[in-house]
């Protein structure tokens, strides 16, 4: 029996959490009912319609009364259109609101840049008190949601990693990276959907005789700075991989750690400060923008060519 035989579907998980906690609400925006949760707890399944600013305010108000609202919304709209509400109503007001966002990164594919979120992690990361999670697969998503429910304070969860990444059981702790592959020549620090290609990159590099460590950085804030420093000290070269702009996200967070520690050499794999305007399927869009195993492999090789500090 693998980890994935036990993974709960998202609706089943919300039902379980809702059964366990009578204060848990799901607040959404015309995104379909969260199935059994809404059927069992119609009063606690709040659909405010297409009103993102209102949605976050409502969630903050529920939390002000001691409720535990889980917002279920689309990443580009909830993080950008309602940014000030997240920052002011939730974070500044110290409200215990969890935001579960689908359609992170380029998952919107041919729907276009309006439906892509390559800025969400950067935006959420700037907010004081906000925890930012990007789980790598369905199993980790379940763990992230469970951890968020227990964590006091606002949490942003970018959902979206589907391909199985974790092979064996492990401890999921907010702020603690998971080493998926050991290696001494370089380290790939990946988050969310890019963890799976990072593992593929590891295999491709191994075939070339390069031993690349792989860290699943499921928490972008608070970043596991110790794991980053250790990787820099032990492997010298760091490649970050994220389905996000190279500005402001994981690559930037890692760069901050490396620069302040004065260690390591960095390459960032991500969207290169551009809108992804090509009409293409999700996988093709990822390929066009180098968000692939090959892209990560190339970044590590370029670091090796450039030597190490």
């Amino acid at each position, binding site marked *: 029996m693998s980890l994935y035989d036990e993974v709960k579907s998202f609706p089943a998980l919300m039902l379980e959490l809702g059964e366990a906690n009578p204060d848990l609400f799901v607040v959404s925006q015309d995104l379909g009912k969260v199935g059994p949760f809404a059927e069992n707890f119609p*009063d*606690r399944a*709040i659909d*405010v*319609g297409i*009103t993102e*600013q*209102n*949605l*976050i*305010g*409502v*969630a*903050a*108000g*529920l*939390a*002000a*009364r*001691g*409720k535990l*609202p889980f917002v279920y919304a689309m990443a580009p709209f909830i993080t950008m259109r309602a940014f*000030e*509400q997240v920052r*002011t*109503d939730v974070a*500044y*007001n*110290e409200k215990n609101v969890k935001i579960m966002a689908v359609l992170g990164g380029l998952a919107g594919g041919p729907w276009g840049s309006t439906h892509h979120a390559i800025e969400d992690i950067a935006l959420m990361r700037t907010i004081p008190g906000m925890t930012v999670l990007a789980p790598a697969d369905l199993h980790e998503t379940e763990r992230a949601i469970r951890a968020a429910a227990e964590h006091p304070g606002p949490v942003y969860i970018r959902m979206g990693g589907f391909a199985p990444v974790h092979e064996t059981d492990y401890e999921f702790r907010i702020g603690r990276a998971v080493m998926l592959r050991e290696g001494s020549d370089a380290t790939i620090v990946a988050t969310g959907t890019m963890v799976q290609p990072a593992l593929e990159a590891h295999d491709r590099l191994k075939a070339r005789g390069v031993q690349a460590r792989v860290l699943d950085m499921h928490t972008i804030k608070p970043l596991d700075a110790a794991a980053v420093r250790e990787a820099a000290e032990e492997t010298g070269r760091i490649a970050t991989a994220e389905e996000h702009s190279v500005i402001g996200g994981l690559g930037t967070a890692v760069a901050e750690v490396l620069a302040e520690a004065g260690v390591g050499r960095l390459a960032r794999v991500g969207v290169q400060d551009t809108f992804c305007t090509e009409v293409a399927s999700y996988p093709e869009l990822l390929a066009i923008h180098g968000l692939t195993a090959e892209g990560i492999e190339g970044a590590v090789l370029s670091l090796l060519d450039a030597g190490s500090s």
Partner: protein
Amino acid sequence: MISDSVVRRLEQQAVTIRRHVVEVAAEHPCHIGGALSAADLMTALYFHVMRIDPADTGRRDRDYFILSKGHGVLALYAALAERGFFPVEALKTFEQTGSILAAHPTLHVPGVEIATGSLGHGLPVGMGMAIACRVEGVPNRVFVMMGDGEMQEGSVWEAALSAPRFELDNLVAIVDQNRFQAFDAVERIVPVEPLADKWRSFRWSVIEINGHDMRQVVEALERPPEAGRPTAIIAQTVKGKGVSCLENSPRAHYTRLTPEEGTEALQALGVES
């Protein structure tokens, strides 16, 4: 029917609230006009209508108040201090380094439920509180005070549109319609009228009052809600009410009173110089 003596007591209390506001404005520039326009509404809420307990600000059976027009904060601070949430002397520290009293409400101030300042945030948050109370089946009410300039914020109308869907008859939106925004009359910048018609068309139960007539104010705030509908009270007010040099002047939004103006205003409010 509210008694004459209660009305008189509240009117006197409102004078005290205005005195505190004027005393601060005589010391340094502040958002005086919108505090004075809201003073009677605030007095009725804090000294008669709302179930609150200064000794236990977190009690579960309390009513909620959100000052969505956060810049009107001096009226709120004065009401909270007079009501015993914190010492009246603290009002003198307004905006000073180390004070708990910032120019917009914060969670540091006892009795403040939600920090505000950016317009258009209060009604959605109040809606969330009202949903929580309704699901609990408790009678707590939620009051959200907004300005008429604030009606230009889109998020107000997101909440106005969605609140009736949840049958929140425990939610009361109060519009302090003093007819001025920061730099000019609302009518000259972007008109928001017909305001009452707008709220009615959004399926709210609407009450129109003179926001300086204490009997009307109390009766509106205490009127049993229309079943299943949130209530919008559109209160006609005067920006700078009680300080003649400011009334209905764009200057009332944010200013400092000159020493002569301060003395005159306090005398008008019954303070001996």
